[in-house]
């Protein structure tokens, strides 16, 4: 059996941190993606401009640079705001910007931009007749969005969401660089202490592989469900 020299439990804890990080980032990314896609498809110029700037900026900058900016810059920003609030209103508050929060914010923000494109395409794939029909039935805009657009666009968005999720899962490894004790960090420390990199990194690589392979199966299953009743050509 694999002898992890007593690092097994902390590696497992690290793996749980990785999974939590991935799920929270995914939730943030989906919310941002829906907001972004709705803005891009709206007729409001300010909203379209803001969403376009958002997706362009995110796609131009490496994940790691963004993460470093959020982690180191976020704390400076919080400190400045805290100083200002203390001077102006006499309220004392402090907020520690930890690696986990910066990780969720950065990864959520980055994948929100990719999700924006995914959802935009999926919304466009919903036939206009459906929206017209909803209007004819007197649905409000929110009602149309929730009852007509979301269920129908999800089918088109699923493959894109699946791809983004696979990339997101692998991106979580970067958060170990800013000091989060996820499984990559534990493995790195263990590898340095025990001088056996293969022993620790290869099992971690296989955990990632298992996570991506498992989610691939799950997405396939979801896709089959979402497409139930859709007649597909060949």
């Amino acid at each position, binding site marked *: 059996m694999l002898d992890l020299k007593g690092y097994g439990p902390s590696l497992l804890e690290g793996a749980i941190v990785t999974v939590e990080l991935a799920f929270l980032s995914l939730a943030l990314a989906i919310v941002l993606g829906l907001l972004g896609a709705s803005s891009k498809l709206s007729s409001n110029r300010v909203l379209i401009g803001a969403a376009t700037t958002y997706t362009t*900026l995110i796609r131009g900058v*490496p994940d790691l*640079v963004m993460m*470093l900016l959020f982690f180191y*810059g976020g704390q*400076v920003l919080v400190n400045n705001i805290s100083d200002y609030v203390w001077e102006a209103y006499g309220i004392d508050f402090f907020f520690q910007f930890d690696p986990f929060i910066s990780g969720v914010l950065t990864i959520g923000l980055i994948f929100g931009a990719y999700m924006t494109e995914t959802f935009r395409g999926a919304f466009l794939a919903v036939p206009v007749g459906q929206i017209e029909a909803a209007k004819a039935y007197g649905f409000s805009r929110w009602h149309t969005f929730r009852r007509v657009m979301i269920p129908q666009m999800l089918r088109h968005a699923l493959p894109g969401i699946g791809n983004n999720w696979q990339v997101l899962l692998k991106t*979580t490894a970067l958060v170990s660089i800013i000091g989060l004790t996820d499984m990559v960090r534990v493995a790195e420390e263990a590898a340095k202490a025990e001088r056996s990199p293969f022993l620790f990194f290869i099992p971690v690589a296989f955990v990632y592989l298992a996570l991506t392979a498992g989610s691939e199966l799950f997405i396939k299953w979801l896709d089959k469900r979402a497409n139930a009743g859709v007649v597909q050509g060949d």
Partner: protein
Amino acid sequence: MPDFIAQWLNQNEVFTAITVAHYWDGLVTTVQLVFLSLLLGLMVALPLAIMRTSKSPFISGPVWLYTYLFRGTPLLIQLYIIYYGIAQIEGIQDTFWWTIFREPFYPALLAFTLNTAAYTTEIIRGAIVATPVGEIEAAKAYGMSWALRMRRIVLPSAARRAVQAYSNEVIFMLHASAIASVVTIVDLTGAARNIYSRFYAPFDAFIGVAVLYMLLTFILVYVFRRLERRLLRHQRPVGG
């Protein structure tokens, strides 16, 4: 130099001649690392992609396994395994390989090359598989051998189909190269991290480098758009 730039350079403490030179060194390292790994990756990927389309599972199987492993795990882990792992190979420190792999640049180059080759293999395979059957039948009818067919028909038309996906891979690689700074390489991100810790100025250091990455990205996007237009010029509508 316009006055406002001179003024701005005089006013701030972070962007001095020394730090700008540091950024420049980082830029050179990033460009070298990305360019070399993409070039080597493409050279590795082309034969692998052809092997991957082979009907024999003994040829396509190992290539599938390679791309599956490298695409299913984070690049950071691959970099750590190669960077820390190479020094652990028995006796490597006595061979001439050690003079190469002692520098962090070469383990990083190896990791990036293997990673991008895996993704590129799948991109090229997809393009090869999508070749219209009629084109291959026509080539066969002309009596072309397998090698000639590959060279004259399949690969040129696959290149056209692959260029869009490959441009995404190139940009992905540029952004992924930022993790080279983790193994003490002073690339663009490494330079920004040094400047951050020297001045404790996160916004100047990281926003500055973000702008540089963005410029590089936009240059690449522009170059690939031109290339794509050139490769697909026969499909442009008349007068378009």
